[in-house]
């Protein structure tokens, strides 16, 4: 296929305004009469609120309102489990939990008021480790939740016990993944402003404008139609920016005071009360035939929910069973507990549980290969899913270039030659490791009513096209991908296409940015809208220029008639057409509802229209005297279905690899007695530009052309991270023979491993 707009390196269309600082994010907004909101957070991980006295704080000049649990409705709500209240009036459950909120005319007044709120706490016994929280004697966070278990997930297909009994190789191990922070550049932010018709407008830094509208209406006990959500530029989310308490508190304060209220986390509160990754303890048992054929997988997961439920239960279930559709399993069983602890509520983070399980599964396979002298490349090729395969959970693998991804990564990295190289004489050893991945591009059970998307593409009388979507660009470049898709489908130059900011008063409902669904599902809706627009355009061209539709071609903004030498521009033609129609714009409308199903009670059912795959190979060097591991080179090969924009794909891969490398090699939220000890970028060590591989991150994209994706495209956001920690752990093992089973892979753990070898 030849494309005019796709497959190229197109800089994101809003790049210039971003790098020059002109782009406006929620914290940049200044609304007339805006008040500054601040939140008082609990200094204890678990405590009864005996008294919250705001009398002194209220006297500070500039303070317009202070809310506490006693002043607001105590009805319960929540994204998955109704364990949220606007503010609690009984107890606080984590160090950072919201106790009160202030709105004042300046940040200083708000801060001063916070310091004058007098709270009498009765400190309660607390529990921080999910496994300990399940014990009989553990203190309960919610009286009605026995053993602190928020939710349990269970799935069993085939007969795992029988298959394990018949396996020549049986391997069993426990892995642990830690809690890490998404570290988006823009912290959580909202501005809420009362508007006309008693409505409320909220500018949100969010991944889910339409869904948060539903949830916040529920929280505020108003009709969703009375809530208008606008999503301007967003400075990253990586999963964290879903429903958020501070947004709701801004809305409550705005409604009570009748003034706009700004609520922006400072970095410390964002660390202490954001939505970090779900930590997991994963026990895994695998059964294989002697030749490496995977026969059975049994897993048990204990996952940390934190003090209230955001999305951890869905993340745990994903960890339990998504990877079962990467390999041709016949017998799988998995139990996952999502457990309350007196710690920060946890939620989505790039990979959504699948990343955690990839660390366990891909590390386990590596160890099995080492122990039984199997080839880690071949074992993956031998067991990996193939096009046309339906997995044990009913997932229909339509496009799949997994095998080709492995081949390409092996070839580009010189895998087999590197494997043969003798060990270095110096104390610094090199090693190489592989891991593969799958993911979804859409996830049917995430929003119960449906998964799908709709879009409008409007062709203005000036010949410019505007894409309206409810899906949320949060910096990943989705708006540019949509413009490219629309331009390609209509035959326009992408320079004349843009994607509008999401405004729920104007944009269609869109589920948002998660499950690596934007390009595939949102993009397909844009494609359908563009096709619909083109059909209308052709009909009008035929009418106005008195041609047959077959005589007309549109390409890169030019319209060609087969009986005419020179093309005319779309801009000129559309103006002519528009003026015959009372000045209207042509509007294409597109809908995409994939044929996915809600899994049945045994979790059977195809959840996603398309499944992306990838293979990563990491090359590291490990200093055996200091224990430090460093990336040397990294090869990431992904089956993306179709390359819409090479530049943003590379951006996602390089970002995903480094985000995964940060997690693998050092990032850690260090919590002591429930208190986060490193809530800042000094002590929470993200990788810097200097920590990228000494050599390079090489990225390659294979085009398997998915039947459901727009022009065949599948997603990249999460798969780019999923295999990283395992690929690095496997490379570290190859270098020095130390297997680190609990992330992060620190110098101390490597030295300990070397010492006990």
């Amino acid at each position, binding site marked *: 296929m030849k494309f005019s707009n796709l497959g190229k390196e197109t800089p994101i269309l809003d790049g210039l305004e971003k790098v020059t600082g002109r782009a406006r994010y929620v914290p940049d907004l200044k609304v007339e009469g805006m008040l500054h909101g601040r939140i008082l957070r609990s200094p204890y991980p678990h405590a009864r609120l005996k008294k919250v006295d705001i009398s002194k704080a209220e006297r500070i000049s500039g303070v317009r309102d202070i809310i506490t649990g006693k002043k607001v409705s105590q009805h319960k709500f929540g994204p998955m489990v109704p364990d949220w209240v606007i503010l609690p009036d009984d107890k606080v459950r984590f160090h950072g939990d919201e106790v009160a909120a202030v709105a004042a005319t300046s940040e200083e007044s708000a801060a001063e008021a916070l310091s004058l709120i007098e709270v009498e706490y009765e400190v309660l016994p607390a529990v921080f480790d999910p496994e300990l929280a399940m014990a009989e004697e553990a203190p309960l966070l919610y009286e009605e939740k026995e053993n602190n278990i928020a939710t349990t997930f269970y799935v069993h297909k085939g007969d795992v016990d029988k298959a394990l009994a018949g396996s020549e190789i049986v391997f069993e191990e426990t892995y642990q993944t830690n809690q890490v922070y998404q570290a988006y550049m823009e912290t959580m932010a909202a501005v809420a402003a009362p508007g006309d018709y008693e409505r409320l407008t909220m500018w949100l830094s969010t991944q889910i404008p339409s869904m948060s509208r539903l949830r916040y209406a529920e929280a505020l006990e108003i009709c969703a139609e009375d809530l208008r959500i606008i999503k301007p530029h967003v400075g990253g989310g990586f999963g964290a920016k879903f429903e958020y308490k501070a947004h709701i508190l801004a809305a409550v304060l705005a409604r009570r005071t009748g003034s706009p209220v700004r609520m922006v986390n400072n970095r410390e509160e964002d660390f202490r009360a954001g939505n970090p990754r779900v930590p997991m303890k994963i026990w895994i048992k695998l059964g294989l035939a002697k030749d490496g054929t995977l026969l059975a997988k049994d897993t048990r997961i204990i996952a940390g929910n934190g003090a209230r439920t955001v999305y951890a239960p869905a993340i745990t279930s994903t960890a339990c069973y998504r990877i079962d559709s990467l390999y041709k399993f016949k017998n799988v069983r998995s139990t996952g507990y999502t457990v309350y602890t007196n710690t920060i509520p946890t939620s989505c983070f790039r990979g959504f549980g699948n990343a955690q399980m990839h660390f366990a599964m891909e590390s386990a396979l590596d160890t099995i290969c080492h122990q039984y002298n199997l080839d880690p490349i071949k074992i993956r090729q031998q067991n990996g899913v193939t096009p046309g395969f339906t997995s044990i959970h009913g997932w229909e693998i339509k496009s799949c270039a997994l095998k080709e991804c492995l081949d390409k990564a092996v070839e580009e990295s010189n895998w087999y030659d590197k494997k043969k190289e003798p060990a270095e004489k110096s104390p610094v050893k090199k090693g190489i490791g592989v891991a593969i991945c799958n993911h979804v591009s859409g996830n049917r059970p995430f929003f119960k009513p449906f998964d799908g998307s709709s879009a409008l593409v409007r062709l203005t009388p000036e010949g410019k096209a505007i894409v309206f979507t409810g899906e949320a660009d949060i910096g990943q470049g989705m708006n540019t991908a949509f413009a490219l898709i629309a331009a390609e489908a209509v035959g326009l130059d992408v320079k004349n296409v843009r994607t509008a900011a999401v405004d729920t008063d104007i944009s269609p409902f869109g589920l948002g940015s998660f499950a690596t669904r934007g390009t595939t599902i949102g993009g397909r809706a844009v494609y359908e809208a563009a096709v619909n627009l083109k059909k209308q355009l052709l009909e009008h061209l035929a009418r106005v220029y008195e041609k047959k539709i077959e005589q007309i071609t549109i390409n890169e903004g030019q319209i060609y008639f087969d009986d005419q030498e020179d093309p005319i521009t779309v801009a000129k033609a559309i103006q002519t057409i528009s003026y015959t129609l009372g000045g209207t714009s042509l509007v294409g409308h597109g809908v995409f509802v994939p044929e996915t199903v809600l899994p049945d009670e045994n979790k059977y059912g195809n959840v996603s229209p398309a499944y992306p795959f990838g293979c990563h190979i990491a090359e590291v060097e490990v200093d055996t*005297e*200091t224990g*430090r591991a460093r990336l040397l080179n990294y090869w990431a090969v992904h089956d993306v279905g179709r390359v819409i924009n090479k530049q943003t794909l590379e951006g996602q891969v390089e970002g995903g690899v480094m985000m995964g490398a940060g997690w693998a090699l*050092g990032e850690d939220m*260090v919590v002591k007695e429930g208190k986060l*000890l*490193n809530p800042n970028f*000094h*002590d929470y*060590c*993200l*990788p*810097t*530009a*200097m*920590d990228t591989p000494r050599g390079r991150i090489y990225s390659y994209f294979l085009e398997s052309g998915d039947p459901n994706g727009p022009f065949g495209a599948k997603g990249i956001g999460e798969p780019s991270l999923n295999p990283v920690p395992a690929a690095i752990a496997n490379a570290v093992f190859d270098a020095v023979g130390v297997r680190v089973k609990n992330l992060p892979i620190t*110098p*101390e753990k490597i*030295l300990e491993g070397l010492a006990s070898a």
Partner: protein
Amino acid sequence: MTWENYYMPLTTGEAIELLVEKQGKARIIAGGTDLMVQHRSDPLNVRALIDIGRIPGLKEIREDSRRIYIGASVTHSQIVNSALLKKKGRVLVEAARTVGAPQIRNVGTVGGNVVNAQPAADTAIALTALDARIHILSGDGEFEKPVIDTFLGPGKSCIDPSKELVTAFSYSIPGPGERSCFARLARRESLALPIVNLGLWLCLEEDDHILKDIRIAVGPMSTVPFRARETEALLKGVLLDKAVIEKAGRSISDEVTPRDSFRGSADFKKQMIGVILKRSLESALEGKGVDSDEREQ
């Protein structure tokens, strides 16, 4: 409370006059990379800040016939780029290169680093290894003393920036056989405070590997930048070979008394300081990555 005035004197004399006039209610500010961070969590109780960034003499790196002088408000970037120091103060260049990130190095100063008195301040460690002297000006006049004598405890210096102004640091021009180097370990490659750091200065007998003299400064191994004098004594006058180097590594691990901290446990730091001393001595032996006046000429 916050300051009412921000002064930018053009001479050291003016700066001292201001300090005297404000009677302890003014404070010297250089790059502000420590002071402003501290002000956020623990607001300064001063009426005025005295910014010394416009005083030309304080930003000079120069040498006379015996000593090298580094002005107090010389930035880390200036040190990194100084041709003179690359030749005659490598430990300092290598230390300055590891401080923070480019933005911090462009504004952070050597004077601030020393007066801030953190036990692992990188350039403070290097100056300690060089046995540098600190030059101070106050209302009572000028005086100087060894840099190491200014450190009283973590974050505590004997220099009072509301009364005294550091003007410069100086050390002897390295002679034949003198070499120096710096090493550190951190959690990442940039923008990270050290887990351990080490400044090494040594003087070899001509034409062989006998150590005439040696200074080893390490951090954060004590409440202040620390001279490993026992290990120095062990090495003085001996032939530097593999076995001695191994012994030195073990010796320093035993000598230091670091604390468990966020950046690493005491045991880990003890082990690591041994590793980086060994590596520094090895590279000194090979003449690699190490300052040596003769080699450079």
